[in-house]
């Protein structure tokens, strides 16, 4: 069985550009969450989607948005990129909205120059 897959694995963008990151959850999982991890810190929660609806949002600016598709895959969009958006972006999938284990993908390493 495939685990959580994310694409791309690495990305370099210029300040002011926008970026779209993609995530496919484990088959059968309906919940997808996005986290941002900067060097030396634990992952910080950005969004959770369950059954195509936003169920939670972390303390991130409106430049960050996401959506979930009917096949439960998800996209994270970041507009007007700042140098401080450089980080590892992790996607986690779980069976239900909460109370079950969350499994992470390999992440997308975003570098903003």
């Amino acid at each position, binding site marked *: 069985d495939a685990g*959580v897959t994310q694409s791309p694995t690495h990305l370099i963008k210029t300040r002011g550009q926008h970026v779209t990151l993609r995530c496919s959850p484990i088959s059968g999982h309906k919940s997808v*969450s996005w*986290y941002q991890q900067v060097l*030396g*810190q*634990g*992952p*910080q*929660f950005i969004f*959770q989607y*369950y059954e195509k609806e936003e*169920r*939670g949002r*972390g303390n991130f600016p409106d430049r960050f948005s996401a959506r979930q598709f009917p096949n439960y895959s998800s996209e994270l969009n970041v507009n007007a990129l700042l140098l401080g958006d450089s980080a*590892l972006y*992790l996607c*986690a999938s779980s069976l239900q*909205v*909460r*109370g079950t*284990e*969350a*499994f*992470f*993908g*390999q*992440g997308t*390493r975003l570098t903003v120059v």
Partner: protein
Amino acid sequence: EDKVVQSPLSLVVHEGDTVTLNCSYEVTNFRSLLWYKQEKKAPTFLFMLTSSGIEKKSGRLSSILDKKELFSILNITATQTGDSAVYLCAVLSSGYALNFGKGTSLLVTP
């Protein structure tokens, strides 16, 4: 504000040693505590703990939760160089997000 604190932040041990990693938390409406191992990129799920005093075990790794004292420990016995990684503790409370600590960076030397 929910808080998850891990200690120590970093640790260097020799192969064969036993290590204990700590995670304390202050959250409202605690639901569960999860441990992950992170090498390079993807955090790999280790354990999920919801009940106090019940040890979870997988090979040389074990973990226990104390809901009265609000902490958990992760033990690794007979450490190997492959155990070198960052170990993350996360707590799920009333919201939908996992609240992570900063992690403990473990280096096992030959």
